[in-house]
């Protein structure tokens, strides 16, 4: 079972993970603001994740951990 976790407060909301995700299951939170004042990235449907780690590969801030 693939699992993607975000260290929310490091996220700068750049969205590069969202653009990289082949399953289109990532988004920027619309209601949450992190410590840095950004809308952090989040996963909308964990069950569809294939643990390809494209999101983490493109994340400039090491926000994302991927497990399988």
């Amino acid at each position, binding site marked *: 079972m693939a699992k993607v976790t975000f260290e929310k407060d490091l996220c*700068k909301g750049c969205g590069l993970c969202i653009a990289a995700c082949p399953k289109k299951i990532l988004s920027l939170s619309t209601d949450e603001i992190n410590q840095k004042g950004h809308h952090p990235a989040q996963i909308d449907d964990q069950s569809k994740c294939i643990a390809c780690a494209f999101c983490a590969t493109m994340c400039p801030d090491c926000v994302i951990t*991927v497990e399988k």
Partner: protein
Amino acid sequence: MMVFEKPKALTNAPLHYCPGCTHGIIHRLVAEAIDSLDIAGRTIGVASVGCSVFAYNYFNCDMVQAAHGRAPAVATGVKRADPSKIVFTYQGDGDLASIGTAETVHSAARGENITIIFVNNAIYGMTGGQMAPTSLPGQVTQTSPYGRDVNTVGYPVRICELLATLDGTGYVERVAVNNVKNVRNAKRAIEKAFRNQVEGKGFSLIEVLSTCPTNWGKTPEGALEWLDQNMIPYYPLGVYKDKFSEEAAK
């Protein structure tokens, strides 16, 4: 099973880079190479001047901060002082290809056994987006507001091609970090540049085409696209010299 986690050779300090700036990806690739070769304990990094000036806060190894352009000379001093150490510099295009051109060219000509990570984003980021030695013809910057006019300010400098002409240069490759495929290739190249040093082979430089969404005036995703459509055609990716595999082939 862990598929992807932050490398140990990065500290926990949050990166100061702007949202979507790919410096962060390149920092991670350097750290991954250090982890993969298990050399953090004997690695000494040289930070430069520019956006990456704070690199000394981010790498989990001994670090020294060099004056603008002088990182290859400082690295030379460190390496000559103790050749058992793994010494790398992390420099931007203004630092390496403008003010530090002499230090770059001569460290390569000497075949110093060091690793240089050259981040080319075609602009001076830290000072707010001025024309760089690698700014493209026609590129609008704060100091080329009508676009870079090659008739008055000349042409961009292609560092990999330039260094490939020197006998002292060991390995130079240009990579990019604008998509997953290119990032993975960049990871391979950076690791190879460090492995060359571990094996005592000589001078390696990896030029990494990188983005500056803030000063390019693009979204982070738009910046990746601009890199792909404008920078890669002017700065083609690939290996420009690999003396070590040439030597191995002989």
